[in-house]
């Protein structure tokens, strides 16, 4: 989709060695006896105008990464650099200001809207809080944004409980959009919706991207959802990125065994194309409180060798990076 070469692109957001550990507390004085390493050393660069997807199973740390990037649950270690500024070093005033460019859409459209506020107030609030718009203009802007996301200005006086899940998600999108941000973190925005509505919301997101030159970090737990929307896909496993490449490369030439396994979970409509070598994962995701030594995937990988059990592979490659001792393809 984006045809510009990577060296000409400007990075909008850089994530450097991001770590997010949650302490495990026990005992009389709540000693910290361990850490859940939800995100463990993640690097990611997001370029202006692209859609990059973060894909992985539940508990792999993708949502935690998203929330750390927008500083809802700030990281334990590492840097999030947005528009050249490291977010954790900003004062709360500066952070609040920069948030107008950095928004998030939540997974659950039911808990993400304050049940006590009318839609009109919900959408006007960001504008008023940041004094970005003249008071007389606010109402018109709210009308516009409702129109843009496929609702009507007559919905303004309604409360969230009067809307369906898909409509609520549109309101959530409108709220993120109204500040005209540069980057929107979409935290599984369609996974709580009916399949029939998912496509509508995805299309809306795509249209909005064109219209407002948005950059998306799109978080999802399956490859199917992100195929049509992403420029690049990062596959996450146990707090780390294991493969990162352009969308078509991921689908045509997956190099990490885990990516392959995920692709197998994604149904292929055309039976003639179902010829790929099957990789079947064994067992469950290991606990992030006690990750395995070496490559974190080795316990479930059918191709694992001795080196995989002792040494963690580093991400390698330029355009198509993969963290595996024995990459496929």
């Amino acid at each position, binding site marked *: 989709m984006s045809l510009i070469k990577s060296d000409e692109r400007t990075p909008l957001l850089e994530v450097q060695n991001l770590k997010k550990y949650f302490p495990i507390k026990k005992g*009389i*004085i*709540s000693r910290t006896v361990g850490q859940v390493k939800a995100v463990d050393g993640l690097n990611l660069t997001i370029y202006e105008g692209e859609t990059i997807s973060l894909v992985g199973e539940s508990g792999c740390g993708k949502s935690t990464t998203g929330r750390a990037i927008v500083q809802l649950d700030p990281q334990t270690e590492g840097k999030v650099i947005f528009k050249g500024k490291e977010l954790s070093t900003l004062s709360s005033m500066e952070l609040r200001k920069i948030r107008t460019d950095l928004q998030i859409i939540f997974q659950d459209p039911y808990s993400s809207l304050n049940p006590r506020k009318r839609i009109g107030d919900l959408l006007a609030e960001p504008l008023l809080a940041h004094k970005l718009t003249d008071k007389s203009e606010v109402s018109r802007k709210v009308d516009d944004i409702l129109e843009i996301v496929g609702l009507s200005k007559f919905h303004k006086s309604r409360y969230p409980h009067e809307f369906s899940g898909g409509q609520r998600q549109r309101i959530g999108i409108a709220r993120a959009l109204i500040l005209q941000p540069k980057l929107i973190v979409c935290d599984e925005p369609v996974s709580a919706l009916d399949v029939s509505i998912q496509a509508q919301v995805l299309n809306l997101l795509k249209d909005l991207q064109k219209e407002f030159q948005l950059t998306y970090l799109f978080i999802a737990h399956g490859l199917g959802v992100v195929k049509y929307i992403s420029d690049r896909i990062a596959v996450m496993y146990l707090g780390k990125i294991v493969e990162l490449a352009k969308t078509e490369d991921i689908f045509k030439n997956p190099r990490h065994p885990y990516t392959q396994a995920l692709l197998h979970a994604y149904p292929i409509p055309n039976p003639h194309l179902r010829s790929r070598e099957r990789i079947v994962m064994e067992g469950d995701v290991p606990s992030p409180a006690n990750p395995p030594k070496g490559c974190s995937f080795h316990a479930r990988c059918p191709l694992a060798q001795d080196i995989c059990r002792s040494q963690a592979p580093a991400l390698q490659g330029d355009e198509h990076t993969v963290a595996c001792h024995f990459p496929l393809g």
Partner: protein
Amino acid sequence: MFQYIVRRLLIAIPVLFGVTVFSFFIVNLAPGNPVEMFVNPDTTQADIELKKEALGLNDPIYVQYVRWLGNLVQGDFGYSFSTYEPVLNMVSSRIGPTLLLMGTALFVAYLIAIPIGVLSATKQYSWLDYLSTSVSFLGISIPHFFLGLGFIYIFAVQMHSLPTGGMNTLGSEGGFSDTFKHLIMPAMVLAAGIAGRMVRYVRSSMLDILGQDYLRTARSKGLREFFVINKHGFRNALIPIITVIGIDVSVLIGGAVVTEQIFQWPGLGQLTIQSIGSRDYPTLMAINFLAAIAVLSSNLLADIFYSVADPRIKYD
């Protein structure tokens, strides 16, 4: 669980310290001092100063606090400003009657309230349920003194069947049956509010349980209704009730002040009123402190029982 109990005890320490500071300072920052009580036309300024010095009232307040706390640890609550008796003696002679009154009230209240609450829930929307709901609201809403006066009017003045007050008939030997007669009315007055609240609580707790699936399972297994209610319902419904006991102790102590005053019951409540009248700070501090300890420890016990009784409680 052991860890939870230890943690709970550790938390109680700063609270206990706060309780001592609070009870000491509020009473000591009060205007007026006990020396004024002894002032008559013959006392000279020097006499007053001497008395103040003797009572330690000239020291800085934190010195007085530390001294008080030090003595407290050794069981010395100081001397009463009004009778010069050791506070410990005054208080300890009053603890017995108060405990008797409160214990009886609590026992009677639970004895009446728990079965009524359970019945009320199992026969929801029956006339019995409505009656118990109305009476329990009455119990919660009626002030102790009005109920006490009403009781005296009915049982002592009109029916002459119970004594109006005190703990024993003057000049009599006393004895168990005499004390018991004196105990009935104040204990009932004190029990009314507790019982009313308890009925409401048992009822709603029981209703919650009765709606649970495992009760339907028990019924579908063909267990007799009595077993279903008793074994599966009632026992689980009682667990959340444990937590109310701590609150009840606090309510009881407050209620005892009024009730003892009306029935001239010679307990700590009556002593409180007397001490307020004579500005007897050491005694007031001691009573308040003891009362707070009682509430603190009953809350502590309730929490611990609760953690033992309900395996679902997490200890962090």
